């Protein structure tokens, strides 16, 4: 309970930090930081702020978000659109695109938080199976491309981002599999205990 009350404040603090122009420009100065530091940071803020939702609002959201499907689809859509290389260039040139991008990341983070548990292991697997595969494909594309896909960033920066995208995807995939395995083991143990008791 205590943790839940603390989270929105942490989110607000982090948001203030991320809004400082120097921090924002620093994160956008290189392609890999733009995609792999800024994007997760804003999603994390979204997830933290979602903890501030009162339980009545949560219940209402849940009615429109059965099994977390709408939330996962929304988050997947945001991440897929943000993988278009043109977004990175446009975000640097146009304030409106930058604002929409950051708000979408906040929303995606909040949606993931509100949808992850209701989704269950099967839907989570489906979501990650799509997202992580997309990250790997885009990453490989960035590594292999002899052309710069963003005018504002250097070619070796792009290749580094590609390698990191694949690395992060592998890491997230492994972490989720370990977590899912642990969940299943715990569930089985609880089941066995129940049967032994009855």
């Amino acid at each position, binding site marked *: 309970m205590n943790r839940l009350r603390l989270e929105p404040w942490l989110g607000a603090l982090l948001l203030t930090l991320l809004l400082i122009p120097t921090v924002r420009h620093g994160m956008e100065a290189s392609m890999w930081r733009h995609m792999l530091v800024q994007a997760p940071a804003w999603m994390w803020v979204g997830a933290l702020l979602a903890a501030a939702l009162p339980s009545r609002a949560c219940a209402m959201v849940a009615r429109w978000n*059965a099994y977390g499907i709408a939330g996962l*689809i929304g988050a997947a859509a945001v991440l897929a659109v943000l993988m278009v*290389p*043109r977004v990175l*260039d446009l975000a640097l040139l146009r304030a409106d695109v930058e604002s929409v991008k950051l708000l979408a990341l906040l929303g995606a983070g909040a949606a993931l938080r509100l949808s992850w548990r209701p989704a269950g292991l099967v839907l989570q697997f489906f979501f990650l199976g799509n997202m992580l595969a997309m990250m790997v494909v885009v990453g490989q594309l960035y590594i292999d491309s002899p052309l*710069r896909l963003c*005018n504002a960033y*250097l070619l070796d920066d792009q290749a580094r981002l590609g390698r990191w995208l694949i690395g992060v995807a592998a890491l997230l995939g492994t972490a989720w599999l370990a977590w899912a395995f642990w969940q299943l083991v715990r569930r089985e143990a609880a089941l066995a205990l129940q049967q032994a008791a009855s």
Partner: protein
Amino acid sequence: MLRTAIVSTLLLLGAYAAASWLTYDFQVWTDEGARRLEVALRPVAPPPARVEGPRVPGAELTALLTEPGGVTIADFIYTDCQTVCLTLGSTFQQLQAALQADAAAAGTPAGVRLLSISFDRQRDDPAALRAYAQRLNADPALWRFVRVPDGAQEQALLRRLGVVVVPDGRGDYEHNAALLVFDRSGRMVRVFDLAEQQLALDYARHLARQAGPRIGS
């Protein structure tokens, strides 16, 4: 469940609309692609910028581009460049050879000129540009070299024409090198990739012919 389906559909439609807007109906994925498409749809007039170089003692870029004698294929360079500009140099050498052959065959000057604009105004003074032109065997009647001495005008020009220059931290630059075709009224009408050299040449020739009889210089 119905409500979830409705929200999900709306979210997907929103993402589709956003992606479609970003990619001009899924035609381009990069900002460079979008820039080339936008230029083809809406020609871009360069902002006021005074340029100078060997044999160009100081003139408005637009005046240079609208001088009688034809359309212009331009590129952005810096003379210290060891990578993509070398390709650009040889691309322009081949264009020059083709234009000289055109002129020899027709007996009149070709209706297409070449212009290399430096974005490294500190290092590329007229003397450096002259040395560079000599290194490339540039024909002064056909191929000119200029820089924009004023920093603010240079930035405005690069921005308007969509040229992005990124210092690579080792004293060099990476930039979206391309062949820019300007029509007789000095507007950038097309941006071609370096690999599309023949296409750029043919397009410029076509433009030069289309604009009526050539004015001899």
